[in-house]
Structures are given as structure tokens and as C-alpha cells.
């Protein structure tokens, strides 16, 4: 219950500290300059390493295939994959497969996320509802969503609906669990402070509970986009004749490993980009999370 002990306190007047960075000259300015340069250098090094490593691996792969250290019929050299990608793009199949997969993923994700957040928050707030449904949802989440596919196919036939629903299912459960946990683990002192300052009912939800729950909701959003991509890919393996999953599976069946690699790389890139977008949105939406200095 007690706050940080002792004197973490700054100087008597707060005004000095804010000014330092701006007006610092002389030795202090030089020291700050060094600190900034060092931070920038480190960031540049990190970035260079994160790019250099995959580039080096691709180079190594190319070399290994060229030199027949590995079987180039199975480990198609990157140069050939690039050629295959060019062909698939100009034939229009790659863009169209990408479009199908993205549409299924994003529609399912949006529906699942919205429903998951609403239901999770509700379960967090309404005790009888939580008692009734939370254990059930946890049990259902433990069933791999892809295992629901045959059932969904039986119910909905072979249209878009069952494919989108597998994504809806996985996204829903991840967000429901995260939103519920965010409410359940909410710092009671902040709720008390909110109430003490006149936030009750709706206002308490809007101005205290929701902003405080957002970090964990974003964690759920980040996790579930990756899971959603896994699920839609697997779904397209078995129950689709288009989409990136179909591209990979079909190429394997026709023994066209170069095209299979194009599919795999595209899926990986999609995963990285979507995760990056969500991380960016989170940074913009929750600036306070990234201003911590310890």
C-alpha cells in the first residue's frame, strides 16, 4: 500500500529540470550530445544487424544451392524463387491469392477482435456472466481452432464463411481472455481514485477502466494477428482453391517448390508487416507506455 520510500524527490523547484535539455550549453551540452550520439549509433547498429542477418542467410542459401551443398530441387535457390515470384505476379495469381488471404484474415480479425473485447470486458464487469461463461470459453480456447473447421464446413458448406470463422474464433478467444484479465487485474487504487474524483458508472469505464485496459488489449491484438495468419493458412491448405495457403499446398502437390517458397515468403512478409502495423498503432494510441524511463 505504501508509496516509494525515502526521497526520490527532485530539487525544490520543478522548473529547472525541464529547462536543462533545451538550454544546456558547455560541458553539459557536450555530454548530452555524446549521449544522444551513442544512442543513435546503437539504434543504427541494431537496425543494420537486423537487416544484415537475413541478407547473409539468403546469400548463404544461394551459395549452398549453387554449389550443390544442398539439393537445389528442394532448396530452391533465392534467385529462382525471385524469378518464380516475378512470374506469379505478372500472371496475377500472387496478387489475387494475397488479396483472398488478406480479406479473410482481416475480416475475421476485425469481427473476432471487436466481439472478443466487448465480451471480455463484459465478463470482467458482470460477475454472474463471468462465472457462467469464463470457464467454458477457456475450455473452448484450448481446442485448436483449426479442429473446428470440419464442423464449420458441415454447417456452412464450402463458402467463405467457414474460413473467416476460423479466424474469428481464434481472435475472439485471445481478446476475450486478455480483456477479461485486464479488468480482473485492474489496480483497485486507480478505480478508487477515479471514483473519488467523480467518475462513476459510464464515466469510470470510459475514463479509467478502458484506458487502463488498453495495453493488455493491444497485447491480445498483436498475438492474435499472428495466430489468425496461422489459422487462415492452415484453413486454405485443406479447404480452399485460392489464397496463399492454397498456393503453398498446391505447389507442394504439383512439386513446384519455387512457387511454394514464394507463398511461404509472402506469408512471412504479411505476418511481419501486420504485426508492425499493430505495433505502430499501439505506439500512437498509448504514448504513455513508451515514455517510461525505467
Amino acid at each position: 500500500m505504501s508509496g516509494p520510500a525515502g526521497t526520490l524527490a527532485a530539487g525544490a523547484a520543478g522548473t529547472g529540470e525541464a529547462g536543462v535539455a533545451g538550454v544546456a550549453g558547455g560541458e553539459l551540452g557536450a555530454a548530452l550530445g555524446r549521449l544522444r550520439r551513442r544512442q543513435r549509433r546503437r539504434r543504427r547498429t541494431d537496425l543494420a544487424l537486423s537487416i544484415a542477418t537475413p541478407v547473409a542467410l539468403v546469400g548463404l542459401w544461394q551459395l549452398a544451392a549453387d554449389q550443390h551443398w544442398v539439393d537445389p530441387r528442394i532448396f530452391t535457390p533465392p534467385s529462382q524463387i525471385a524469378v518464380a515470384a516475378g512470374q506469379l505476379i505478372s500472371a496475377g495469381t500472387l496478387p489475387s491469392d494475397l488479396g483472398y488471404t488478406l480479406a479473410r484474415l482481416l475480416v475475421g480479425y476485425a469481427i473476432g477482435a471487436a466481439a472478443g473485447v466487448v465480451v471480455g470486458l463484459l465478463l470482467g464487469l458482470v460477475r454472474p456472466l463471468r462465472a457462467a461463461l469464463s470457464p467454458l470459453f477457456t475450455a473452448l480456447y484450448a481446442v485448436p481452432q483449426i479442429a473446428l473447421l470440419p464442423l464449420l464446413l458441415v454447417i456452412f458448406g464450402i463458402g467463405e464463411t467457414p474460413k473467416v470463422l476460423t479466424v474469428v474464433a481464434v481472435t475472439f478467444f485471445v481478446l476475450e481472455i486478455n480483456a477479461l484479465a485486464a479488468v480482473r487485474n485492474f489496480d483497485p487504487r486507480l478505480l478508487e481514485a477515479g471514483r473519488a474524483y467523480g467518475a462513476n458508472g459510464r464515466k469510470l469505464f470510459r475514463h479509467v477502466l478502458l484506458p487502463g485496459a488498453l495495453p493488455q488489449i493491444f497485447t491480445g491484438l498483436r498475438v492474435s494477428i499472428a495466430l489468425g495468419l496461422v489459422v487462415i493458412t492452415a484453413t486454405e491448405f485443406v479447404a480452399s482453391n485460392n489464397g496463399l495457403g492454397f498456393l503453398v499446398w498446391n505447389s507442394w502437390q504439383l512439386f513446384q517448390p519455387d512457387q511454394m517458397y514464394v507463398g511461404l515468403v509472402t506469408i512471412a512478409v504479411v505476418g511481419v508487416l501486420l504485426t508492425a502495423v499493430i505495433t505502430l498503432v499501439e505506439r500512437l494510441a498509448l504514448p504513455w507506455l513508451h515514455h517510461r524511463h525505467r
Partner: protein
Amino acid sequence: MELAAAGVSKAFVTKGGGHLVALAGIDLEVRSGTFVSLLGPSGCGKSTLLRILGGLEQASTGTVAGTGATGATGGRRAFVFQDYSLFPWLNVLDNVAFGLRMDGVGRQERTDRARAWLARVGLAGFESAYPEQLSGGMRQRLSLARAFVTEPDVLFMDEPMGAVDPQTRLLLQEDLIRIWEETRKTVLLVTHSIEEAILLGDRVVVMTARPGRVKLDLPVELDRPRTLATSATPAFSELRSLLWDALRDEVERSMDLS
């Protein structure tokens, strides 16, 4: 009578299924416009009593009068919490303006009022910082500003200067004395500093070790306006030793308890 507790007890159910009696039969009356300081050993239930009087917590037994709505300016109450309880997602300015916002005060007005208070507690220039970027003492000053800006009729303060450095503390105490003497709000102040309790209070209430009861209720008949010089007077020293005698036994007992 602004606030009155009669026979207030509070028991908590603990994790292991046992229970803990924090308060046992507290009688306390606080007249409007008086400043009451509350002293007591750690864990004796001061914060609990404050929360009950402020309407944030229910008493287990006994009655509490005067705790109605807890809206910041609607019910005219404001709190300075022991652990600050600042909202990490709001910047300094928005934290201060929170109570006003909940009361529907317009943006321009609440910004102006919040800025004025930030300047008074020495936080001008930090408007757009987040609480996590502040030192402990700065957070405490922020939480003082958040309470004062709502212009409450009753102010509940739980060790509001515990983490402020001694120099700032002196300045804030002087500030607090001046503001209080100008405005004469009803104030309940929990503190661990005997000097602070005397300097600010019209009365000093000493609580016993847990379960907390009222051990001593001492009027402070020192002239106002008070300044830091007041603490050099013989009358002040006399009160200090009276309070220390009462408190010392309880602190020792509370050490034995735990």
C-alpha cells in the same frame, strides 16, 4: 458538523480465511472549517479511517455522517492518496484536470485552473510529461495539485508529503497553512510527522496500535497565522512532547504486534 464517525469498526477478511480488525470503535467528529491531524503507528488504520470518512469504503459497524456523494466538486470532496494513485495514461496536466473534467468543467477553464496549480506546486513546464517520468516527490506534488484544483470543501490527505524532500516539504507546509487560513476548508490530514500535525492542525488525534482507536484528541491552541517560526515556541515544544509520549507507546506496541 462536517464529518462524524460513531463507533466505527472495520474488519477485513484475509487471504487465508482469517480476519483482521483494523479499526475498533472510532468516535470522531470534525467540525466544518477545522483542520484535524491524525497521528498513529504504521498499520493502525489511519488510511482505512480516512477512506471510510471519505465515503470510499464501508464501515463494518458504526455510523458515519457527512459522507454523501464523493464527486470531486459535486460532493465537494478531494483526496490526496498515500500512494498518489495518479493515472499513468494521462499526462501531468490531464491528471490535474481530471476531477474538473468529470464535473463537466469546460476545457479552457480546466486547463487554466490546472496550470495555475501546477505552477503553485512547482511543476510548471511538466504539463505534457507522464507520471512515470516524474520523481516520487514530483508525483506527490502532482497529486496535491489534483486535489486542490477542485476547490473541495472537505479535503482528505493521506501522508501528502511523505515522499517530498525536506526543503520542498517546508515550502509546501507554509503553502498549505496559507491556503488553509485563507479558505478554511475542512481538512483531515494523516501524517507521520508530529511537527507537521501540530503546525497545521486545530486538533491532533492520536490513534492506538491496531486495532485502531482514538487514544488522544488534543486541541492545538497556537495563534494563527502560523509560520515555521511557530515551531520554535515553548507552547509548540510542550505539545510535541505530549504527543510523542502518547505515540511512543503505541509505536512500540505496534512493533511487538508485527
